[in-house]
């Protein structure tokens, strides 16, 4: 039986949403402080408008719509879906006011790209963007990557009873600690430790590269946000290619991989067994996919000579971890041979581990799909009455149950369908099939690499399609499906 929502449900949802918007507005204080300290007058007002508008909306919703029902999972899922849309719209306000975007939709695209840790960008003249706006662009990735709802929940939570609903709604399947709020705080703790490590590493490299202390600090902070949260934004239009630093590329590879690893595995490695890294099913799948795709890429780019490692391998890691950093000059990906581009598309499709900041099908599901395929073949080769159980190691020995397989196949096909649907729409606008598929996968899997379709000049409908893909891909569809069902059930009364 599907419960039909009434006014009390919406009142409850809007109340929680109001609290979460208040949480978001607090994050906007960071760029305000930066703009104030750096004497960036115009950006200061951009963020003041963004902050006050968000705070007013947040307070209005909490004051006018009281919690009238016990918060349930459906409420949590609906709040998560709606929340991400509202956050991206509010986050777009200061970006739009910066005058670096052709329209509000472009700014919304940028904001959604940031929150969903995608990295596709429609900004014009990035090299002249203010420090505070750059801070906000990169901060959206950090907030989005860590889980914006959980971020707010762990700060000013009142709905702890359904925190798990919010947690699952934000596409995290595994709890690390028994309590979800504790899990969220652990994720933030891990992130802050890596933040310090990352900033120190990047700062050292950039300072030696010739950046001033101040620029080294800001750039290292932003590059950390973009690499660990697998976002892919960079403060310069050339992305990583701006720095001309092989050391920086290696360092970003390390942090991209760290960001693509399951937070549960981080917990295990920190607190329990270091050997888990060698036994873990997801890590093994990652090793297998990266090696296979590297071989394909090698044969595809063999004509490049030694440049293939710096050009090809970096893009592959960036695609596989869902980061989207690039060290290529503009449009250079277009000149990759079809096979090489296909390897990168596959890497983007797969993504990183579950319970990480990456998007895409995820290694766990891909591994299960393959394992179940081989399991089925083995079953056919066995005596008719033989009982066969397949197991895999993920923190503990787990049985490959029908439920797990069903879930893996479900996500596998939803992602494939969305990749193809986005590509078909782009083809409808006259883009070639290969490029259309590349861009669609990049948006849905929250990667951010581009073959040039994403630009301020692209059709408005396609911008909206990519916004939807980034949103749906980040939330992994389920909370959106539940929300649609929630709305549809209104008409069934």
């Amino acid at each position, binding site marked *: 039986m599907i419960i039909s929502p009434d006014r009390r449900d919406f009142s409850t949802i809007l109340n929680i949403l109001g609290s979460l918007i208040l949480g978001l507005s607090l994050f906007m204080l960071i760029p305000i402080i930066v703009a104030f300290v750096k004497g960036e007058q115009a950006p200061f*007002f951009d963020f003041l*408008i963004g902050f006050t*508008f968000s705070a*007013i909306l947040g307070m209005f919703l909490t004051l006018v719509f009281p919690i009238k029902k016990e918060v349930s999972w459906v409420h949590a899922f609906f709040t998560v879906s709606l929340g991400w849309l509202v956050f991206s719209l509010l986050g777009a306000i200061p970006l739009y006011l910066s005058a670096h975007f052709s329209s509000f939709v472009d700014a919304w695209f940028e904001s959604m790209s940031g929150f969903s840790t995608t990295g596709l960008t429609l900004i014009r003249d990035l090299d002249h963007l203010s420090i505070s706006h750059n801070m906000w662009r990169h901060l959206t990735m950090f907030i989005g990557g860590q889980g914006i709802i959980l971020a707010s929940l762990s700060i000013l939570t009142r709905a702890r009873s359904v925190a798990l609903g919010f947690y699952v709604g934000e596409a995290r399947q595994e709890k690390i600690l028994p309590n979800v709020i504790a899990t969220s705080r652990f994720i933030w703790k891990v992130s802050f430790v890596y933040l310090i490590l990352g900033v120190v590493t990047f700062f050292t490299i950039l300072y030696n*590269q010739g950046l001033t202390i101040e620029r080294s600090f800001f750039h290292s902070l932003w590059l950390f946000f973009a690499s660990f949260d697998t976002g892919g934004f960079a403060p310069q*239009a050339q992305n990583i290619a*701006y*720095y*001309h630093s092989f050391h920086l590329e290696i360092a970003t590879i390390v942090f991209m991989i760290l960001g693509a690893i399951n937070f549960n595995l981080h917990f295990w490695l920190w607190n329990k067994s270091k050997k888990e890294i060698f036994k873990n099913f997801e890590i093994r799948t990652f090793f297998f996919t990266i090696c296979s795709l590297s071989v394909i890429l090698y044969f595809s780019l063999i004509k490049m000579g030694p440049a293939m490692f710096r050009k090809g391998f970096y893009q592959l890691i960036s695609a596989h971890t869902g980061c989207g950093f690039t060290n290529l000059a503009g*449009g250079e990906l277009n000149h990759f041979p079809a096979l090489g581009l296909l390897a990168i598309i596959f890497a983007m499709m797969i993504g990183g581990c579950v319970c990480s900041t990456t998007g895409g099908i995820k290694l766990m599901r891909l591994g299960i799909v393959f394992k179940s395929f081989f399991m089925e073949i083995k079953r056919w080769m066995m005596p008719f009455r033989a009982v066969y159980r397949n197991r895999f190691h993920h923190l503990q020995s787990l049985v490959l149950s029908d439920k797990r397989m069903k879930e893996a196949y479900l996500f596998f096909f939803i992602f494939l369908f969305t990749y193809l649907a986005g590509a078909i729409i782009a083809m409808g606008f006259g883009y070639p099939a290969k490029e259309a598929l590349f861009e669609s996968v990049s948006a849905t899997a929250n990667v951010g690499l581009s073959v040039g379709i994403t630009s301020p000049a692209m059709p408005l409908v396609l911008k909206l399609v990519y916004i939807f893909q980034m949103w749906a891909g980040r939330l992994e569809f389920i909370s959106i499906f539940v929300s649609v069902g929630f709305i549809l059930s209104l008409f069934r009364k």
Partner: protein
Amino acid sequence: MRVKLKSFIFCLLFTTLLIPLVYAQSASLGDILAHPDNFIGKEVQIEGEVIGEPLNDPAGVWINISTKEQQIGVFVDNERKIEEITYWGSYSTTGDQVRVKGIFYKECLDHQISDIHLKSLELLGKGYKNEYTVSPGKVKLAKILSLICLVMALIYLIRLKYGKRT
């Protein structure tokens, strides 16, 4: 007379054929990056704004040139070649406009990326400090929203403190 005319035509043709060899291929950066194979190992000439800062390299320095649509790294083997540059593009400054002549490499053997190795740099225009003005409408809107926000915050805090008791 005929011989003179023939020699004149020959010289003219020869000179015409020599021009591309003597002068760098003047193409937009967009063209170069869109059809890199046509420019590999050739001397190219691009015009654009210098961005950011000079970046260190064991064998020289890097500068980044930005045209409206595209950007590329230019490798400079001798820092003296870029002495003339005073303004580097950022939020607070518009960088110097320069004309860069150099050899384009699609897969540079030294750096394993697409770049231009600088031969000469010509300053086309001095950069300047950017001055930004805040539109009065924006200030007014910010003030109004701040005022509403303060009032709302007051109501919110009162409700938070006394709301549950009533």
